[in-house]
């Protein structure tokens, strides 16, 4: 028996030694990023206890999940808010999973690109609030030798390209929109998202808006049956595919396209103007739109004359009473309110077109004000959150 014991104990002790060594490295490493949750006691009450632990003196841990479009924003804000005692974790699993997590109160907030549907709110544990937070344009990016800028496309042409009816770049339809550009005869390769995504929903909503044929044959959803083209996973996959294939066209999130210097087309908006997906043009999509009472806006094909037509909004969803319905402690609720105030306040200044801002379009001031007003209705077990 001794030998096996020795074998087993020596194996265990080897693993233990490895662990201890790495812990030692960690201990000697910089201690500046020790999270507030490392020493915090595990949630005490079983069953409906939340995962946000309230620590000492206004520090809290907020866990969120959802939209990949907004993930970069929340991660940046999380980094900034850390110095103020707030730990924000965001899991970019997709808007649907984020909403599902909020419905079971396994997270304190959800990031969702589409507005909450009645079927979503029906399954929530209590009334939920949604706050528009930022906007991201969806660019029509392409790879065409010799055409580095100035390409104009309109809705119907995009529909026909993505339906496979327009097969080459020098098709008369494209030529008609771009009289000054010499278009090669390269065949068009359509690249679309293969994974489920709010970006797809935004793009296909635009296509459905401008074409009843598209609406009836393909529809608008996070995943659709594409009539033609190759699927690539995630923005990075689509970006890589476009880069690798001459003559490719695909739809890519603005943050991506801007950061990586993509070539994208100017798309015709509902006012007849050809607009490039710049940040100001993206913000313009939210100006003058109808804002429903629950703030569930949609910015596709909306906005003023300078608005880019394919813009996706993104929401932060929380419970109106996180303590009662979400099982949060009062300090977590305060932390949540602090996070949201930051989101509509100082956080908005981190978004924009300058080189030190994140490439997303901030809220127009009217919308930010509306968000703040709605925020004041948040309660903790009935009483307003401090």
């Amino acid at each position, binding site marked *: 028996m001794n030998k096996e014991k020795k074998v087993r104990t020596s194996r265990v002790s080897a693993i233990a030694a490895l662990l201890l060594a790495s812990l030692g490295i960690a201990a000697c490493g910089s201690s500046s990023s020790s999270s507030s949750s490392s020493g915090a006691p595990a949630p005490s009450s079983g069953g409906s206890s939340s995962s946000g632990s309230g620590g000492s003196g206004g520090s809290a841990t907020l866990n969120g999940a959802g939209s990949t479009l907004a993930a970069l924003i929340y991660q940046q804000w999380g980094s900034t808010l850390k110095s103020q005692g707030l730990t924000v974790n965001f899991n970019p699993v997709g808007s649907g999973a984020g909403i599902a*997590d909020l419905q079971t109160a396994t997270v304190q907030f959800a990031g969702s690109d589409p507005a909450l549907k009645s079927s979503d709110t029906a399954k929530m544990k209590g009334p939920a609030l949604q706050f528009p937070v930022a906007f991201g344009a969806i660019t029509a990016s392409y790879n065409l030798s010799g055409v580095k800028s100035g390409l104009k496309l309109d809705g119907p042409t995009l529909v026909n390209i993505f339906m496979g009816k327009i097969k080459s770049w020098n098709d008369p339809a494209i030529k008609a929109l771009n009289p000054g550009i010499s278009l090669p005869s390269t065949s068009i390769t359509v690249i679309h998202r293969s*994974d489920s995504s709010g970006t797809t929903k935004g793009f296909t909503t635009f296509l459905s808006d401008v074409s009843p044929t598209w609406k009836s044959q393909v529809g608008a959803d*996070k995943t659709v*049956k594409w009539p033609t083209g190759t699927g690539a996973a995630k923005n990075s996959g689509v970006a890589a595919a476009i880069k690798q294939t001459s003559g490719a066209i695909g739809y890519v999130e603005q943050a991506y396209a801007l950061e990586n210097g993509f070539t994208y087309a100017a798309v015709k908006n509902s006012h007849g103007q050809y607009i490039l997906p710049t940040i100001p043009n993206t913000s313009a999509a939210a100006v003058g739109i109808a804002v429903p009472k629950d703030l569930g806006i949609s910015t596709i094909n909306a906005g003023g004359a300078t608005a880019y037509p394919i813009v996706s909004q993104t929401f932060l969803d929380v419970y109106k009473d996180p303590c009662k319905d979400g099982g949060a402690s009062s300090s977590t609720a305060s932390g949540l309110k602090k996070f949201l105030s930051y989101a509509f306040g100082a956080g908005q200044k981190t978004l924009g077109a300058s080189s030190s801002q994140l490439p997303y379009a901030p809220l127009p001031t009217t919308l930010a004000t509306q968000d703040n007003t709605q925020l004041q209705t948040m309660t903790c077990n009935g009483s307003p959150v401090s």
Partner: protein
Amino acid sequence: MGASATTAPGGRSVFQRSPASRLPDQVLKWGLRALAAAILALLAYFFIRLIGQSEKALSSFGLSFVFGNDWDVSRNIYHGFPLLFGTLVTSAIALVLGVPVAVASALYVTELCPRRLRGPLSVLVDLLAAVPSVVYGLWGVFVLAPKLEPIEKWVASTFSFIPFVGGQVSVPNYFIAGLILAIMILPIVSAISREVMATVPAEHKEAALALGATRWEMIRMAVLPYSRPGITGGVMLGLGRALGETIAVVLVIGNAPVVGHSIFSQGYSLAAVIANEFGEAAATPIHSSALFAAGLVLFVLTLIVNIFARRFIARGQRGLRGTGATGVTVAQAGAPE
């Protein structure tokens, strides 16, 4: 006569074990039995929950969930034959490409390679298992797929008379997915084959050589038959990996819910669809149920494949027993009484 010398107090023979010393045996036996039962209960619970979650989709679509050809998320229609097709095609390609290479390398390492190289060579092949699947997928999509595209185009045009080969070549396709899967199952099949081949009794090999067999004949007569059940076990594990591999396939198969017309077409697989769509499906009951049902189909598929595999192994073992290749018992059986 020797009764007193061999009788312990209490009247039992010293050659009989005391009840107390039997206790650890019983503990072990019943402990292990309980463990196996607990695991079985856990797996059964898993299966039952899986069925429960899939129920909605299966009752809505019935058999057309498996055999219908229309996976349309925006219309909430979930007929998953393209997924099943893709899973089968890519796994078949993975086996055809991966198993021979794995077995060959295992044979080389155990039989032919210089002793000193044995350790390092096995570690190297096993290192393939260390690479996370997402890395394989990314390497596949950024490096392998573009590089192989011209070759695929050439094959498709030259051999277009073979069904399922000719036609348009898409950059992410069944073949690339199958190839990546082959690489991923290589270490599993190879490692287990190696372990199995290393335990072939020396007497078998020496007997074959003594009868004048060449190296290769010895391998064919002594090593391979003995190792067949074990290698098959390894292949089953590898196949399981191929059937269920998610992230790598997602990146290189193209994710088009269609039944591709050639191995160079885009397709989809059961595992990939779950990874791709669950993030957004979580809030739509019929959609998430359909995804669980896809997992269930995979479950059943693996079961069917494994039933055949076990039957194959059993037949092989019966054959082995017939030829008497089961070690010392042969000599014992032949010994004069």
